[in-house]
């Protein structure tokens, strides 16, 4: 957690500490942003213009207000797939309104410091998330690869070959850019029968202008967009915080999570007003940025600006880019995003983590909603963890020499998941004068375990034994004081009254 207050000197450093490399990497990243912005506009069912404006606006705004310098945010796969039904059912204006509302929700999350909740997202869930995301990105390319001419496959393969083989020759030029240019030129010369960007919808021919979403300001509208906004807000923050973590690891620096949450919100909020759709941080493009040497806010800013200038100024040329070139770039992003080591790790990692990871992927692929996948993953991790901890529990006992008193020693973690084992550990059929339950080496965590302890005491009393509990340590004592009934005088009567 970063609690340091804002420092102008540091902020300046974050902008201008790495100017040359940031500028170059910003250029490289812009090339990888265009295909995703166009591809996912199409997935969401809107004109490429919407995604391109969004990518420009989000990248530029987040450069100023984000909490993780060097991270690339724009219109993304993760958020676009969520909004497809909204556009299909209600149209573009509702999408813009949902984007604005998602921004507001994210700002609120940021102010509430919900970035801290990321601690419950385990590594397995994160791996599942990136794998699911990579699969979503790949699946989004399938419409461009089915029912098309054979030339499409040739061009995709050619573009992929350039993307992956060119870096072996030179690292000085972005290979995706070269791939796009080569494929475009070839297509223009030989007039291949493939779709191009111009066929996919309206492209920007002017800079974005302010535009109020044309929706009725009613409760009904709110009810329509709220579920989408909420899902977009959550997924956007999840991917952003996960990407921030990734960049933190790669560059060995820290990011300000709550500022990032609020920053994503601000970016989406304003993006909705210039006719852009909601976005978030992008794992693949952020990795490309770091790999190209980008570390500062300037890299994100340049990426956004270059993107806009390219598509507005080179409008006539962008129109000519054949879709196979963009598909190839997105396949590269998908491959780079996927955690291939996780497949190898399936063998070695504990089965519970593998189950969590695969569940996340399966749920996301089924629902196209990363939020639901992560929720399932977090719940499963919690259950598996509780199940493991519940095993850290044991009861042993010894009988006194005269056979009238038994002392039970309870050890380990006592909570809802261990209650069953706890109950089974006592022998109530044994007739005793006195029972001592020593919990000095146990931790009592919740009311389930308090209730179970109460029940055990009651049962022994009913069998005629005096019960003494010793060694309630400080941690357990507080919770027992607040919740238990066994040390109150009329507890047994109440117990009987309830008709057990």
């Amino acid at each position: 957690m970063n609690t340091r207050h804002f420092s102008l000197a540091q902020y300046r450093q974050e902008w201008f500490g790495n100017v040359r490399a940031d500028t170059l990497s910003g250029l490289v990243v812009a090339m990888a942003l265009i295909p995703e912005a166009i591809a996912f506009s199409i997935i969401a069912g809107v004109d490429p213009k919407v995604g391109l404006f969004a990518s420009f606006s989000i990248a530029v705004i987040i450069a100023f207000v984000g909490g993780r310098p060097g991270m690339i945010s724009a219109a993304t796969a993760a958020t676009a797939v969520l909004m497809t039904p909204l556009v299909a059912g209600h149209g573009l204006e509702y999408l813009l309104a949902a984007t604005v509302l998602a921004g507001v929700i994210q700002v609120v999350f940021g102010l509430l410091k919900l970035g801290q909740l990321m601690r419950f997202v385990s590594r397995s869930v994160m791996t599942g998330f990136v794998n699911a995301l990579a699969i979503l990105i790949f699946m989004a390319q399938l419409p461009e690869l089915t029912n098309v001419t054979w030339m499409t496959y040739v061009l995709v393969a050619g573009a992929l070959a350039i993307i992956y083989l060119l870096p072996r020759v030179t690292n000085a030029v972005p290979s995706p850019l070269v791939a796009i240019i080569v494929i475009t030129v070839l297509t223009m010369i030989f007039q291949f029968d493939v779709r191009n960007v111009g066929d996919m919808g309206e492209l920007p021919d002017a800079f974005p202008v302010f535009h109020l979403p044309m929706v009725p300001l009613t409760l009904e509208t709110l009810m329509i967009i709220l579920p989408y906004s909420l899902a977009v807000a959550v997924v956007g923050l999840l991917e952003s915080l996960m990407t921030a973590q990734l960049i933190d690891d790669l560059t060995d620096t820290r990011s300000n999570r709550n500022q990032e949450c609020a920053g994503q919100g601000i970016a989406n909020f304003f993006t909705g007003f210039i006719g852009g759709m909601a976005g978030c941080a992008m794992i693949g493009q952020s990795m490309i940025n770091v790999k190209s040497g980008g570390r500062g806010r300037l890299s994100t800013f340049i990426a956004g600006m270059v993107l806009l200038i390219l598509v507005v100024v080179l409008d006539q040329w962008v129109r000519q880019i054949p879709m196979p070139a963009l598909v190839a770039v997105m396949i590269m992003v998908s491959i780079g995003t996927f955690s291939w080591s996780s497949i190898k790790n399936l063998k070695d990692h504990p089965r519970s983590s593998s189950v969590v990871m695969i569940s996340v992927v399966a749920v996301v692929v089924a629902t196209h909603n990363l939020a639901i996948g992560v929720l399932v993953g977090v719940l499963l991790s919690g259950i598996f963890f509780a199940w493991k901890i519940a095993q850290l529990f044991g009861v042993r006992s010894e009988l006194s020499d005269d056979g009238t008193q038994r002392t039970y020693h309870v050890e380990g973690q006592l909570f809802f998941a261990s209650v069953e084992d706890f109950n089974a550990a006592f022998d109530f059929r044994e007739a005793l004068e006195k029972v001592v339950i020593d919990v000095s080496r146990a931790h009592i965590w919740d009311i389930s375990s308090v209730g179970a302890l109460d029940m055990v005491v009651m049962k022994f009393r009913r069998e005629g034994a005096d019960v003494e509990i010793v060694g309630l340590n400080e941690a357990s004592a507080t919770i027992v004081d607040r919740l238990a009934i066994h040390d109150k005088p009329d507890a047994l009567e109440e117990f009987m009254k309830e008709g057990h």
Partner: protein
Amino acid sequence: MDKLTAFIDSSNYAESVCDHAAWIAGQLGLSVELVHVLERQKGHHAPVDLSGSIGLGARTALLEELAELDAQNAKVAQKRGRLLLEGALERLAAEGVTDVKTRLRNGDFVEAIEDVSADSRVIVIGKRGEGADFASGHLGSNLERAVRTAKQPVFVAARAFKPIHKVLVAYDGGPSAEKAVDRVIASHILQETDATLLTVCKEGDPMAGKAEAALKRLQDAGVTATLVMRPGHAEKVIEEVAAETGADLLVMGAYGHSRIRTLVIGSTTTAVLRACKIPVFLVR
């Protein structure tokens, strides 16, 4: 035993910081903690790869590559740091200070200042860091952040140490100036020195009364002190009087104004630090 914390780097100031630390340690009976912060060079050493392609296992490969680079640089930096600290240790020992601990830290200089433990009573730093250009009047950008962050008073060492006989105490009547006066009284740091209490104001200013009270407090505590009142721009007057009296040390309250005001009109403290060639003891 309480201690002082001295920050050294490989700039020209390292020796001077050691000498000043030795003097303060002697005066106040403190042990010395020597800290060197290994600041990460940002991105300059990364090889340029503008291919923009990410393939199988890109994340792991990238992480390994970057970590490997950092690891090599860090090893070298650590070695350099240890040598630097050893040199400083010898210098302190030569001056009779033997109760010294050394610490090598990674990260940001200002973060390290923030983490200085509570039992440290003074922080000693050089006026400029190793990155700063000496010829320009520009102060290490770290200095202001460091002084604002520090919970302790900060002693800013000059380029070379001179035995301290004459002390100039700059007094503006503000809370941090009052604290500066209290500090020098409580610390006995001025016991064997001649002190000049300087107030930048005209005769008959309401400040004069406060200044005289402060002077009396100094004298009551057994400090040989005289009062000088002079109108003008604070940084100019302080520089003039320091030169006239031949002061070896300037004591002043630091950054009494808000950050916003500093942003607009600049900080007197930074201006004084820039103008003065003598060490400055800053109390917040």
